């Protein structure tokens, strides 16, 4: 950035609508003759728009939280008011409760099983549980106008809409539905590498660890795939969950040796604990 700070200040004022008419004219004249200045204007404009998207992402996270805690109840009330009654709802409280008991029983059995496994020194799944969190959506922007954006040409409009829907499920932590939609729409091709990382995370969340391992190994076999470091981290965790500790440690050590790796600290801690 060889332009001076005062140039950047002028660009900011221009783009944020704070420039005087004199300043506006000056910018517009300079845009015609100064290529470097014009590029800087484009760059700052893109940063401003990116901050807006980021802000919306944070806002949507808050709405997702509210949706998680309120939507079911409000929909049920609305159904009753519309005279639909509970019988037309897809989810019926009685079964939900019954499933809850089943789920709780299974969880208890798993917990007891895990306890005995730990007693035998098998700590992979426990470490997995401690360190696994779903990676935030960094690749799908909700398309206003629903156009297939650049970089997703491999999808038809209809397929892309389903990918967007899958990512919405993902952000709402409905990993089962997200996985189903991703699996149905993501082909195993290099163009889909980034999305395959998210598919793998859904598979890990729904106990399909072997499928996740195969997908992540495919991604890491590509040359310079997107989300490569994330794929390394999640592959290590998938191996941990599968009790393939040696493979997990090998990957975690490789991560721990990369100073810029976003999961370096976590990898170091896990390796220390296993040792």
């Amino acid at each position: 950035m060889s332009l001076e700070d005062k140039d950047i200040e002028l660009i900011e004022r221009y783009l944020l609508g704070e420039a005087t008419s004199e300043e506006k004219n000056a910018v517009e004249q300079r845009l015609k003759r100064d290529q470097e200045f014009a590029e800087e204007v484009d760059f700052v404009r893109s940063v401003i728009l990116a901050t807006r998207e980021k802000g919306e992402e944070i806002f949507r996270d808050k709405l997702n939280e509210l949706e998680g805690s309120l939507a079911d109840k409000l929909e049920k009330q609305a159904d009753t008011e519309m005279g639909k009654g509970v019988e037309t709802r897809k989810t019926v409280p009685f079964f939900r409760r019954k499933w809850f008991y089943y789920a709780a029983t299974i969880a208890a059995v798993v917990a007891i099983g895990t306890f005995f496994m730990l007693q035998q020194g098998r700590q992979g799944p426990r470490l997995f549980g401690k360190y696994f969190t779903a990676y935030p959506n960094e690749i799908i922007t909700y398309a206003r106008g629903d156009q297939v954006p650049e970089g997703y040409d491999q999808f038809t409009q209809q397929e892309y809409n389903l990918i967007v829907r899958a990512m919405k499920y993902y952000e709402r932590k409905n990993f089962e539905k997200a996985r189903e939609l991703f699996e149905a729409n993501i082909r195993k091709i290099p163009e889909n590498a980034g999305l395959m990382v998210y598919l793998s995370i859904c598979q890990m969340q729904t106990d399909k660890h072997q499928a996740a391992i195969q997908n992540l190994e495919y991604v890491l076999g590509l040359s310079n795939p997107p989300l490569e470091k994330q794929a390394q981290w999640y592959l290590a965790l998938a191996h941990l969950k599968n009790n393939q500790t040696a493979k997990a440690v090998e990957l975690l050590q490789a991560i721990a040796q990369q100073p810029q790796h976003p999961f370096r600290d976590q990898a170091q801690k896990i390796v220390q604990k296993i040792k």
Partner: protein
Amino acid sequence: MGESIQNISKKEIIQGIRDSRKDILEPLYRKYYPMIYKMIIANKGNQEDARDIFQDAMTVLYRKSHQSDFQLTSGVGTYLYAVCQRLWLNKLNRQKNREQLEQQVPDQPEEVDLMDEENTHQQHILRHLLNKIGKSCRNILMKKYFEQRRDKEIAQELNLSGPSYVKTQRYRCLRQLKNLYAQMLEKG
């Protein structure tokens, strides 16, 4: 449950949306989501459609709330309902299934504008890179460019020494972002 939304002024609601305040968003959700849900269900939609459309409409309002010249001439509920109808009609239209709703859509309040904007590839990468720069850089850029706060306010809110420091830091952050962007392009 917090205060009922009817007791809160329109101005405060818009301000609360702008600041993503839970004490504003929650009563809004409770009050208006059921209305939207009913409209979508009655017009060939399902639960997921209703949730998506309501969230998209709230996001439209959120975006609007950051425009200094935005004034809501109608009530918040009327506005949200109109935006949801428009969004849902667009969706039905795409599904070639619009006949049922079309006759019911009244004239829209003037400020209903879905603001379709093209997301450039550069913007998409930069959004990703905003997660890579430090938190303090991200906060400074967000406060200035997204929330459009003045440097003096940013200094106060982020507990920084003063407006000139905010400005210097922001330019440093821009350079950092630009370098990361260049590196990413080099990597292809």
